[in-house]
């Protein structure tokens, strides 16, 4: 299979190693920020804290995740629907994504785009930043077209069959991504890019924020769906397990397509210009996402338990003990699942507007997204890479013990760092701030121990990233060759039949668009009927 898929493998490897490079560089910036806030090191004037913060956010949240998910999606499509195919579009998509990334990265490192990864107007960056990130998004749309073309070709030869389960999940993930990215594309193409080029003098700040968060929250579900693809379809193979239910897996992904977008205003609870009723509506819809989350929690534990019973193990501890805790490709996703439980608890707090007032823009929020994207998502992608790269290169994983230590140290580092961040936030420590001592103010002294604990956790995480890089490079040059089959987890024999309606991803995507319009028509109309004063752009760094 490896030899047959050699052309395809090269493309997936390009994505995975681009993601690895982004993670490594992003990790360096992350470490320096944590040390800088703890006063253990100081950012030099020629590469200040906020430039690092922008680079860290863009590299980790956008570049690392997007390249890995696109690479894994193409891998799933190629393997689950094998046939003779042209890779021209796949490579064009990769090239476009890379070109956009490099343009935006140039603007950031030269100090022309110190606007953080949320690029809130009227902070005005160099046009290369806005154009570059837009080109990156357009590259992902080409990946979507590639996926659709492969599905159409497959359907012609498999009339009346359900899509392979992993391809169904991939199609849902990218359908959701397309619906969500339309918002940021409109913000970029019609507002930020013409304004940064000097064609329009001012900007409607609240409109740009609403469009950003229309995209910004589904962005996190794009990461989560990428991790879910692996949890449902790949991880059960590591303990000779099965997918608990084909139908409920498809239903989970469909629910995520429907519920990821009509929720973005919960990021704008503390903002003027949007009345409380619309914020209340988005609180309600945000909590809807709990349903696919608890379905996933059930499916994972059910899959663990069924596999353990087949081995004659029973009870909670018997089930847990039957899992392969010495295999890094399992421990990565497994520790991710564990962290996600706490990520979910924090999310429930954030989505409630009365509790959000206590934690909005504090370190609590930073703790929350590190224990979600930096925990479940990153650990799952890293663990999956330990399984994936040997199958793409035909080389044995180099340094399996080091890889195992990497997943354990990441878990420990993230648990320390994220707990400290949450705690600092409850005490009032603000996020996105280079120095949180406030001229020795009494209130600011409260959160210094947590700021130092954050630096300790961050240092452990950085060592963990170095271990991952060593394994990633070591495997690429490993001399030990091994041909390994690629199989996705089979559906459990006892699972029920899947209704054909769950396979109609395009139809559900149309329903999702309708829900998004219903959720945003009201607040958008309210915003556009106000007497708007545009704000001129500014470069305050």
């Amino acid at each position: 299979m490896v030899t047959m898929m050699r052309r395809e493998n090269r493309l997936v490897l390009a994505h995975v190693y681009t993601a690895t490079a982004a993670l490594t560089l992003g990790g360096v910036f992350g470490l320096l920020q944590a040390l800088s806030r703890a006063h253990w090191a100081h950012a030099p004037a020629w590469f200040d804290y906020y430039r690092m913060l922008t680079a860290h956010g863009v590299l980790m949240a956008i570049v690392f995740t997007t390249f890995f998910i696109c690479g894994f999606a193409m891998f799933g499509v190629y393997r689950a629907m094998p046939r003779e195919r042209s890779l021209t579009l796949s490579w064009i998509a990769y090239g476009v994504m890379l070109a956009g990334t490099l343009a935006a990265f140039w603007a950031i490192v030269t100090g022309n785009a110190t606007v953080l990864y949320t690029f809130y107007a009227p902070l005005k960056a160099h046009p290369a930043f806005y154009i570059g990130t837009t080109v990156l998004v357009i590259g992902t749309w080409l990946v979507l077209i590639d996926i659709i073309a492969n599905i159409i070709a497959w359907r012609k030869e498999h009339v009346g069959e359900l899509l392979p389960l992993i391809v169904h999940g991939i199609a849902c993930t990218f359908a959701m991504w397309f619906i969500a990215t339309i918002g940021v594309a409109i913000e970029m193409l019609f507002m930020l890019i013409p304004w940064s080029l000097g064609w329009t003098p001012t900007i409607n700040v609240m409109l740009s924020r609403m469009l950003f968060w229309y995209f910004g929250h589904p962005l996190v579900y794009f990461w989560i769906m990428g991790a879910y693809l692996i949890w449902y379809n790949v991880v059960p193979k590591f303990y000779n397990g099965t997918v608990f239910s084909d139908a409920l897996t498809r239903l989970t992904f469909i629910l995520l397509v429907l519920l990821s977008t009509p929720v973005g205003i919960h990021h704008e609870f503390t903002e003027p210009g949007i009345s409380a009723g619309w914020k209340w509506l988005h609180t309600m819809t945000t909590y809807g996402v709990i349903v696919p989350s608890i379905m996933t929690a059930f499916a994972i534990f059910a899959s663990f338990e069924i596999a353990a019973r087949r081995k004659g193990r029973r009870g909670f501890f018997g089930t847990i003990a039957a899992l392969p805790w010495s295999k890094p490709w399992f421990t990565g996703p497994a520790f991710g699942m564990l962290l996600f439980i706490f990520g979910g608890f924090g999310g429930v707090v954030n989505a409630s507007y009365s509790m959000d007032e206590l934690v909005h823009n504090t370190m609590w929020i930073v703790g929350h997204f590190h224990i979600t994207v930096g925990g479940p998502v990153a650990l799952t992608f890293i663990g999956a890479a330990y399984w994936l790269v040997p199958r793409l290169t035909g080389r044995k994983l180099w340094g399996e013990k080091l890889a195992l230590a990497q997943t354990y140290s990441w878990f420990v580092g993230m648990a320390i760092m994220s707990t400290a961040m949450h705690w600092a936030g409850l005490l009032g420590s603000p996020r996105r701030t280079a120095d949180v001592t406030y001229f020795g103010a009494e209130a600011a002294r409260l959160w210094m121990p947590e700021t130092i604990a954050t630096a300790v956790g961050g240092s452990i995480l950085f060592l963990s990233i170095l271990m991952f890089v060593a394994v990633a490079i070591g495997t690429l040059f490993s001399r030990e060759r091994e041909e390994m089959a690629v199989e996705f987890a089979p559906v459990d024999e006892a699972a029920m039949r899947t209704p054909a309606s769950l396979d109609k991803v395009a139809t559900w995507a149309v329903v999702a668009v309708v829900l998004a319009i219903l959720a945003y028509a009201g607040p958008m109309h309210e915003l556009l009927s106000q007497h708007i004063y545009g704000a001129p752009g500014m470069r305050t760094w």
Partner: protein
Amino acid sequence: MHIHRTERIWLTAGIVTLVIFLGIIGAAALTEGIVPENHVQTIDPTKVAETPPFDNPGVHKLPNGAFEVDIIGRIFSFTPNKIVLPVGANVTFYATSPDVVHGFFIADTDINMMLVPGWVSTASHVFKKSGSYLLMCNEYCGAGHHFMSATIVVQ
């Protein structure tokens, strides 16, 4: 579609909990008036200093004994940057920004709002404890963002 009995119990428990949770939030909004920032008022960000109430920022005692505090958050300071209030003061803050987006966050209180150029933000609070409170900008606004703070003295 058949769903396994244990999963039916799990999902029912989850969804019932969710409905109760949402019911509490809804009831708190309707009966106690616990709602998020609800102020829809625009202002010309290039003319903040000439527009009331920001032409005269600071503490204003209202005839009913409550206080109105009008604050401008700009790069990289608050005007005024020291506010003195009596213990037990019932305060409504009005704030806006003439330049970029800022945060307006008072540690140890529930005052936490965004200042968006072009809009006026408001929040109310009763200061029950005396002491020195730290008002911070908690949204990145530029190179000097970490200097942007003010003191609220309650005595």
